[in-house]
């Protein structure tokens, strides 16, 4: 046979070579140059089982437990595993559903509804059939669980409280949002995290580190076994405990006293800056924001016009009223614009006053809380005569004053270990420039002198003022947590050991302390109701005018105090909203009771106590504007 086509043998060989080379190139693009496939592969064949660490506990200053975890159980269902194949493409239910309904305390219709919901999610993958079953309830039918094919339980933990107190400072825990998951890849759908208070501030320490177990699953999501013999697995690391400075008994007592009122109490150990008690009234039982009833309770609390979810102690900005006068006297003495013997006649002008003899010294000024006296003091601070132009002179004085106010911790966020804190307001020249266009002077803002006008503080700052005086010249940033860690290792933040000097001599503080002692103890003092037999309580009242929606409301009743006079153990503020009668009539007696309880451990005047505990002096809040 003549062969004219021998060269075609070469062509065929080339075709074979090119085809196979192209397949190898295609193989390389899939296997070597495209990580998408590898990731998709892992995602569907491996299932990461998360091992949740126990969330850290929270203790009080005497290591009494406040917050702990309680196990609850989610009943899980895999719908297909509840069925048995009976041939001919048909399935039958294997479980005694009537028994299961009885055990769970649900009706047959509810069972079917939940079953349908699970099927809508997936027939082969597990989903929650009933969530957060309390452990006692679970224990009652745990023994029967094996009878129900396709059901199993998953353990979760919920926060639990030894006493229903401290809601605002402890905060609450809830499910993470989409935003949380985007911000921190640690969180996965359905995880819990702290959403407010200490739970949020110390979230990273409390939550611990999740462990994981990598399981190999098949196409039906059934577990085949541990992947790589558990080589990639990790054990969970438990969260740190919080050892707080809260005195649980005191906290409970404060909450009892403030029940049915509106306002805030902050009590601090002045030498250390440790918060002993902090409450915002009205408050709520922290158990309400746990578990199955969370959303229902949350929305109810959220709608309440008394704002029980709002932590007034650090977020409520109030005019401090006359409590502010202590800081004014100290500033003026340090600046040298008045001497300890500075006197002023009470003219009830240009600021009004109550009836009292004229104050002839700083000590008397504080004791009687004379408004015109502090008008004169403030005038000397602001108008020092450095400039002939009154505006320039006011500007100079205001700047100096503003600087001193900041040293007390006013007008700035105190770095307490809570997630959100307001800074209040201490006006400076930009405030008045904005309003009066460079043509303002002392006459525009003299009401600052008596803690009104543009001055606003949060109760925490008022308590901090009491600390500054108690310490005669410094404060330590208030904080709630003393130590973090566990039984074997504890650590603390260095920022909560630093002293912040106010920069005012101790001798001036002694004068202020003497005045504050007289407020409680001598005739003509404004807070005689704070007096407790045998305790040398020093304090200063405040009666703050205020408006809501442009309508004048009853005065707020404020009182700052510390005790004992030497080596004070407690400094505090009591602030009661819209309580007619002034600082001496409500805040002062409540403060006296708190101090007595803390220093002596008992209450010597039960009738006095029950009166202030049971009466609600607060004018009701205005309904929200339509």
């Amino acid at each position, binding site marked *: *046979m003549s062969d*004219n*086509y021998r060269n*075609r*043998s070469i062509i*065929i*060989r080339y075709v*074979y*070579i090119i*085809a*196979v080379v192209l*397949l*190898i190139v*295609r*193989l*390389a693009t*899939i*296997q*070597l140059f*495209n990580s*998408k*496939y*590898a990731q*998709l*592969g*892992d995602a*569907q*064949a*491996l299932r990461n089982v998360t091992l949740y660490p126990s969330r850290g506990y929270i203790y009080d200053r005497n290591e009494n437990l406040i917050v702990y975890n309680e196990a609850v159980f989610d009943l899980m269902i895999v719908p297909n595993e509840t069925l048995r194949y009976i041939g001919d493409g048909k399935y039958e239910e294997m479980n005694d559903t009537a028994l299961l309904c009885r055990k769970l305390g649900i009706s047959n219709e509810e069972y079917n509804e939940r079953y349908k919901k699970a099927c809508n999610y997936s027939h082969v993958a597990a989903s929650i059939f009933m969530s957060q079953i309390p452990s006692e309830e679970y224990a009652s039918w745990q023994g029967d669980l094996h009878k129900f094919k396709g059901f199993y339980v998953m353990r979760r933990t919920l926060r639990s409280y030894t006493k229903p107190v401290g809601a605002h400072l402890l905060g609450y825990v809830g499910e993470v949002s989409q935003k949380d998951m985007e911000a921190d890849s640690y969180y996965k759908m359905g995880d819990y995290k702290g959403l407010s208070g200490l739970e949020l501030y110390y979230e990273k320490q409390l939550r611990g580190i999740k462990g994981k177990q990598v399981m*190999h*699953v*098949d*196409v039906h999501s059934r577990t*085949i076994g541990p*992947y790589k013999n558990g080589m990639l697995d990790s054990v969970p690391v438990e969260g740190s405990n919080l050892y707080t400075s809260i005195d649980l008994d005191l906290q409970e007592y404060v909450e009892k006293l403030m029940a049915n009122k509106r306002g805030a109490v902050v009590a601090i150990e002045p030498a250390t800056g440790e918060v002993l008690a902090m409450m915002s009234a009205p408050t709520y039982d922290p158990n309400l924001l746990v578990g199955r009833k969370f959303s229902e309770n949350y929305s109810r609390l959220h709608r309440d016009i008394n704002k029980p979810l709002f932590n007034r102690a650090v977020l409520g900005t109030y005019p401090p009223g006359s409590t502010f006068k202590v800081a004014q006297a100290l500033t003026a003495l340090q600046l040298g614009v008045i001497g300890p013997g500075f006197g002023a006649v009470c003219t009830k002008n240009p600021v009004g006053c109550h009836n009292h003899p004229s104050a002839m010294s700083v000590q008397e000024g504080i004791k009687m809380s004379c408004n015109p006296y502090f008008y004169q003091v403030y005038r000397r601070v602001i108008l020092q005569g450095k400039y002939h132009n009154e505006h320039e002179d006011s500007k100079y004085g205001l700047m100096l004053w503003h600087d001193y106010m900041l040293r007390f911790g006013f007008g700035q966020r105190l770095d307490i270990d809570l997630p959100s804190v307001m800074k209040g307001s201490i006006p400076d020249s930009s405030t008045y420039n904005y309003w009066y266009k460079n043509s303002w002077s002392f006459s525009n803002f003299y009401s600052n002198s008596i803690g009104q006008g543009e001055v606003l503080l949060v109760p925490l700052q008022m308590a901090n003022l009491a600390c500054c005086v108690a310490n005669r010249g410094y404060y330590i940033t208030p904080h709630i947590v003393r130590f973090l860690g566990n039984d074997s290792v504890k650590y603390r933040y260095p920022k909560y050991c630093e002293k912040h000097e106010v920069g005012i001599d101790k001798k001036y503080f002694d004068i202020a302390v003497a005045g504050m002692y007289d407020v409680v103890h001598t005739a003509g003092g404004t807070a005689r109701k704070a007096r407790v037999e045998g305790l040398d309580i020093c304090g200063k009242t405040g009666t703050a005018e205020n408006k809501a929606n442009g309508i004048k409301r009853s005065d707020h009743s404020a009182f700052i105090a510390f005790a004992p006079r030497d080596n004070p153990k407690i400094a505090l503020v009591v602030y009661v909203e819209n309580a007619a009668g002034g600082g001496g009539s409500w805040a002062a007696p409540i403060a006296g009771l708190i101090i007595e309880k803390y220093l002596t451990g008992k209450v010597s005047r039960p009738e006095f106590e029950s009166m202030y505990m049971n009466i609600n002096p607060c004018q009701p809040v205005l309904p929200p504007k339509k």
Partner: protein
Amino acid sequence: MRTTVEYKKIDYTTIVLYAAIVIFGWVNIYAACYNESHSAVFDFGVQHGRQLIWVFIAAFFALFIMFIEPRHISNLSYLIYGIAVFLLVLTLAVGKATNGGLSWIEVGSVKIQPSEFSKFATALALAKLVSGHDFDIKKKRSWWFIALLIGLPVGLIFLQHDVGSALVFLAFLIPFYRFGLTPLVFTVGIAAVVLFILSIAVTTKFWLIFALLVLIVLYLFVWIGRPTLKHYIYALVVFVGCTAFVISVDYMFGLLEEHQQNRVLVMLDPAHDPRGVGYNVTQSKIAIGSGGFSGKGFLRGTLTKANFVPEQETDFIFCTVGEEWGFVGGALLLLAYLWLLYRLVTMAERQASVFGKFYGYSVSAILFFHLVVNIGMVLGWMPVIGIPLPFFSYGGSSLLAFTVLLFIFIRQDASSTSLF
């Protein structure tokens, strides 16, 4: 005349390549079916155990063929062809339906797939026809015979709804090409396939036709330069033909069954029908892609082990290779196939007889077609046509038929007078 096997002339390279592929194939079937409860190699209740039996049967047949006088095989070609066609007819009569096709005959507990055996039977018959002294590829009469020999099994296989196996007969274009078939067939064929796919892929046919017109005008005035009347007529015929083809594609596509249409659409866009036909291809690519460069290791494939890839021990067996042995394993396997194909062409070229040469090219062409379509499908380049990877996929009929196909040629080669 009676010849014995001339051991020195047996092409051992081919046998070693064959054995290597078969063994590696079985290892991967074992891996694809492996789980802790079925780890025994000789468990005949599972696929890898049954495949092991088929490996021994195939080896026995291979050995048996080595002792047959090649002359007898050549003489029996038409008879073998006849038996194969008979079996196909029998399948239609008593066959078992699987996967929407009727391609199995059950003999006791053993299922055989006659379409697999029809490939080498047809190869033998065609080789016999071409080697006849009155055969001339340029005569029309010869083409009637060829069409009959190919058309009969293809028609019967089509009736079994086994489109993949029927398409395999396209592989015979390669030996015919070697024997003088005009390459125009390939040009027209490739052009038709490209036009077909383009017509389905584009939404407005107008632009496709417009592009064709531009191409033809360019051809006339740029390529030819000064076209004659004959060129114009050719150009017009081609243009009208193509336009008619493009317009009728929708109609032709409609003739396909829905699952076949889906397979074509999935090839064009894997996202089409991701849970149905697209699922196989996507899962297959994921499994292979997850193997990376060096693979996850023997029995460590997470996806194949978890049954994510359907048909993973038969048509999609290459996924296991890709996942567990990685690019290294996959590429080496493809190179082994290439070596075998190349070797077969060399062997075919050294055949003194037309029968041997044609049969040799047929063997290489059938293996080549299977390789390209199967791997192309697994890698997402070809529509999902269910044809096995030769010597490798699970399935007794396919392993035995390919073994017989190959060893008839090895035997033929061993007694042929070398041209070199």
